């Protein structure tokens, strides 16, 4: 079976600025595919090319094996949920959802049935005649999705639709969206700059930077095995150190913190250490650990996500360390000195970008 979306050598230039640079990727039927990247990385440009609002400068887009070149947005088998949702304010919920079906000339009675089905599915049964301006943020979100899904598109494109919601609602909608996608099975392409959204919802994430994909992978792999320094830095929380030298089994930061790593390659520039990979008060029996002492500068309490910011004794490097909330660490105060350790496999090194 051919992939539902295939992008080949896609390139988009605005005057002298390259927004999207020679992208190649495929999306399989039923995927929840996220494109994660900082603002200005070209992800919106890419999405708009798939939707048909922008013509690529070079390259092709195939949807279900069909080349989309020259096909206007209103005739593509994809639908889009806009960042600001773009609900039609002069129509009620029902008219909004029915709009696309009306354009296709679906008979009235069928429209009515499909709209009601769809509203029920997104949990808005009975909201038919409500004005969209009377709805809450989450409800508007669902109307926007229903309006697109009712057309049964091959692919649903979502342009940071959770961006405008408050945090709590966003957390809730993340789960809701994931469940909805699982239930209906439509392929979602979701763009966001929020790594948590991408990691929670997707089964595939592409990390985008400067118009190019740095890595396409499952969320787990992306987190565990980031392939580039950018991915390592962008996905998940991490400590970053600049290396003075690497190779021959050791790494040394600029400030002189020496760490052992057998397979360390020469010419590495960056060292990344995730806060949760630092072991506090390690068992003295454990072998192969890089042991060091930290002085606690501050405690950043955030429930299960509490961290401490410590100064590495000797080099003075500052490091964030995850602080498990259990009895063992209850007495920790600022200014305390603690034993800590890192396993060499958790030291991730990358060359300087571009080299």
């Amino acid at each position, binding site marked *: 079976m051919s992939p539902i979306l295939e992008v080949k050598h896609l390139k988009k230039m605005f005057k002298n600025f390259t927004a999207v640079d020679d992208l190649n990727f495929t999306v399989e039927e039923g995927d929840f595919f996220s494109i994660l990247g900082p603002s200005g990385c070209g992800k919106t440009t890419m999405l708009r090319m798939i939707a048909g609002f922008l013509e690529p400068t070079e390259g092709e887009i195939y949807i279900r094996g069909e080349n989309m070149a020259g096909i206007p947005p*209103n005739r593509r088998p994809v639908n889009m949920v806009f*960042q600001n949702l773009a609900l039609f304010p002069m129509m009620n919920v029902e008219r909004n959802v029915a*709009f696309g079906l009306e354009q296709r000339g679906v008979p009235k009675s069928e429209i009515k049935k499909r709209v009601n089905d769809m509203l029920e599915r997104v949990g808005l049964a009975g909201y038919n005649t409500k004005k969209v301006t009377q709805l809450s943020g989450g409800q508007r979100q669902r109307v926007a999705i229903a309006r697109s899904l009712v*057309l049964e598109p091959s692919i649903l494109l979502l342009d940071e639709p959770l961006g405008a919601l408050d945090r709590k609602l966003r957390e809730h909608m993340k789960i809701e969206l994931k469940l909805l996608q699982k239930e209906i099975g439509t392929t979602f392409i979701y763009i966001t700059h929020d790594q948590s959204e991408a990691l929670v919802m997707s089964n595939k994430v592409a990390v985008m930077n400067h118009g190019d994909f740095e890595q396409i992978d499952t969320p787990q792999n992306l987190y565990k095995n980031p392939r580039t320094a950018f991915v390592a830095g962008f996905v998940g929380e991490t400590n970053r150190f600049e290396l003075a030298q690497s190779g021959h089994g050791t790494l040394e930061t600029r400030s002189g913190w020496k760490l052992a790593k057998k397979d360390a390659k020469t010419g590495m520039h960056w060292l990344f250490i995730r806060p949760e990979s630092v072991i506090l008060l390690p068992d003295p029996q454990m072998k192969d650990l890089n042991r060091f002492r930290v002085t606690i500068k501050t405690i950043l309490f955030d429930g299960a996500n509490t961290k401490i910011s410590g100064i590495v004794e000797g080099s003075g490097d500052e490091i964030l360390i995850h602080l498990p909330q259990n009895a063992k660490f209850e007495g920790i105060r600022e200014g305390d000195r603690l034993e800590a350790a890192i396993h060499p496999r958790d030291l991730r090194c990358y060359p300087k970008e571009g080299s």
Partner: protein
Amino acid sequence: MSSRHFRLGFIIFLTPVLLWLLTLIVIPHIDLLIASFQAENDQGKLVFSLENYRNFFTDSVYWYTFVRTAFYSILVTVITFLITFPLAFYITKIASKRLGGFLSMLLLLPFWVGELVSIYGWMILLRESGVINYILQGVGLIHKPLPLLYNDFSMVLGLVYMSMLFMVVPLISALESLDDSLIEAASDLGASKFTIFTRIVIPYAAPGITSGAIVVFMLVLGDYLSPDLLGGKNSLWFTEQIYNEFIASFNWNQGAAFGFLLLLLSTVIVWLGLRLSHQRLDKAVGA
């Protein structure tokens, strides 16, 4: 305590407004209303009479003039809308900010030079020995000058020209708030360009269209100069009729009655227009 303070301040600010309304709008209108119900009897004395109103309905000239005036006012409103809507759309949605600003300035120009000056401008352009006929004859398109001036054509042209600004400003402000993504969303959902215009853009701009249409309609209906100077021998305008009653015939009572009939009938037309387009006055004026 503070609410009393507020009330006092409110009254102090409101008083001049109310006084202004009363002395400059309400009282003169009451005066005219009383005058409109008076007519001279055979001894030359003013007595209560409905004659002024009866004249309007019995003398077909006045009826005819009013219907004509109303018809052309509606026509001018429609033409002005048809011309300025694409223009407002272009200025707000397509043109760059600078070009848009420049075009809006151009639209302001007729208003800037004043109605009389622009009317004379049109006269120079349109008359038989005028610029347009000269060019058309020069390139050999016509052999006899076209009668472009002193007819309904030139009158409508002048009125549309003068009204454009009053239509385009509310349209621009309505369309400016229209999010581009609404248009894209409609397109994404399968709508053609035409459907996007009729189902999204126009309904969205409806309050702006309504307020623009009301202003233009009232303005044209009450205009005097353009019909008089550009209109030619057949283009009697109802305001000219009122003017004639006051100035030429010295019959102020008749003129006052005509004035009130104009007010009443134009109100009815605006009300009907709002009814037919499912718009509300407060919304349109507030837009």
